[in-house]
């Protein structure tokens, strides 16, 4: 019994160490392979040991064969464009659902929530036709448009507003402040945690998105990071340049990965918050 008490936790630590080694192996390999010199051929490429003098040659080759600067720019435009519009639409709609009483409110709320099931990726075919009709084909605006409204964000903001006591607004209303001033000066500052959580979830989702931009974008000048990486991967895989492939993938993962490591707790809390509330 006593032996059990000491051995069980030790076994658990050992097991979880093994699991996390397996889970981290793909990333360890990416780090090693991207800095490993002489990447031609695959023999020895799989070793996870740092048995080499690091080189930046793979990154140089990756940057030469893929226009990563342009991809970063396009993805940043898409991500910020979507988030900017979303923050306006979800704040307005969240306020309406949390604070106004009007006929048809419940019906409209359910109509919003329908978007949680009819997620945009399932509707790529009809949505592409709509994008073409709107003249947005092959533009970054076309990539962004289906995401301008967010049922999830609206729900999150409604919950956040409902959690704020009405006393603050009543005081401002007595002073003669209009509704929009109350939203801007009272409600939104108090709903900051929800706004931050939504921003993190939205940026992560759209930074990583692939299939929809792939369908909308044709011109290489509009390629986003994920499309660029897919094209680049095909080239590097065909040429069996594994070090270059690793370097290119690392370039795509790096910005989010670094942000995540810096604000780890915020990230995890945001995803949990979004899941529990949404």
């Amino acid at each position, binding site marked *: 019994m006593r032996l059990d008490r000491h051995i069980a936790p030790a076994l*658990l630590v050992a097991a*979880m160490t093994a*699991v996390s080694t397996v*889970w*981290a192996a*793909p*990333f360890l*390999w*990416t780090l090693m392979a991207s800095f490993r010199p002489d990447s031609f051929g*695959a023999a020895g490429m*799989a070793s996870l040991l740092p048995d080499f003098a690091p080189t930046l040659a793979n990154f140089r080759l990756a940057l030469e064969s893929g226009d990563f600067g342009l991809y970063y720019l396009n993805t940043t435009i898409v991500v910020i464009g979507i988030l900017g519009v979303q923050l306006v*639409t979800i704040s307005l709609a969240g*306020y*309406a659902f949390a604070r*106004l*009483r*009007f006929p048809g409110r419940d019906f*409209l709320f359910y109509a*919003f929530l*329908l*978007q949680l*099931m*009819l*997620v*945009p*990726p*399932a*509707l*790529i*075919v009809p*949505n592409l036709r*709509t994008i073409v009709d709107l003249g947005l084909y092959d533009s970054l605006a076309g990539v962004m*448009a*289906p995401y301008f*409204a967010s049922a999830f964000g609206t729900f999150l903001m409604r919950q956040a507003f409902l959690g704020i006591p009405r006393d603050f*607004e009543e005081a401002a*209303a007595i002073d003669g402040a*209009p*509704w929009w001033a*109350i939203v801007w000066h009272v409600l939104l500052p108090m709903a900051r945690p929800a706004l931050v959580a939504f921003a993190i979830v939205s940026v992560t989702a759209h*930074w*990583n*998105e*692939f*299939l929809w931009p792939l369908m909308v974008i044709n011109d290489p000048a509009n390629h986003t990071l*994920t499309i660029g990486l*897919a094209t680049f*991967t095909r080239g590097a*895989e065909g040429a069996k340049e594994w070090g270059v*492939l*690793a370097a290119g*993938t690392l370039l795509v*993962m790096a910005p989010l990965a670094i942000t*995540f490591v810096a604000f*780890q707790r915020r990230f*995890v809390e945001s*995803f*949990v918050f979004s*899941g*529990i509330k949404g």
Partner: protein
Amino acid sequence: MTVDAIITADVLDVASKPTVRPRRRQARTWRLALSLLLPSLLCLAAFTYLPVVRVVIDALYATPHGGSGTRFVGLENFARVLADSAFRTAAWNNLLYAVGTIFPSVTLALAFALALWRSTRFNAVVRTVLFFPSLVPLVAAASLFFFIFLPGVGLLDYYLGKLGLEGFNWIGDSDVALWSIVGLTVWKNAGYYMIFYIAGLQNVPRDQIEAATVDGANAVQRLWYVILPALWPTTAFVVTIALIQVLTAVDHVVVLTKGGPSNATNLLLFYIFQEAHENFDAGKAAAATALSVAALLAVSLGCLRAMDSGARHEA
């Protein structure tokens, strides 16, 4: 007071005496509400409601690519899709993929959460490592797995070889390829589901666990009779997002296998993507979309009902 302020006062007042409110004020609140919802509603109409209608209409017509001359064909597109062996394979694969992915990733997520829910420094590091794959684009994960799955010299075979084991032709063998895709997906998602279980475990009533321990329940019994029932809402939520995920995320198939070899890794959304983007068969793409949207709705509504009944059991 400005008009806006009147409305605001009115809005804040509604809880007390709604019946004596003058009609004009009510109409004003309604107009304000509508204008606040309008930006969202326009976008939802264009990209959520309209597409469902559109896809059903498109499925009933044949449009030759490039030309005009659209004509009504009734259910012919549906018949063509259902008769297409690639579609039937994709539907069957998707079912296997769903079961093969969701069951292990949710079980692992729960196991990880139970192992790591206490906040120690070691657990924090392991949690980070397990969660990290879910932040990486699926395309990037697919790129890395090109090398990992490389026969003979790739990461997987290299280390299996050190253990004296022989690997497979992971994505080249049609009997294995779908399970390789399943493995990639489990690796990517288990840590994501884990964070919901860790959050859920904070809400399991400690006193119930202690009471069960005092009553002589062993660890397995405590898990089965106390912890798992208390985690039911979390499980329902996690399974729901996992189900939506297996129907809507095929980036790894697009990059790694293109549905091959010989359709072994073809999934519904990839089939739709191919019909629309490569074969330019708008009618088939629309009919397949209509079928998969129906599946998506059935699955999510089923999950909602399960969550509801679970919540009622709780209460």
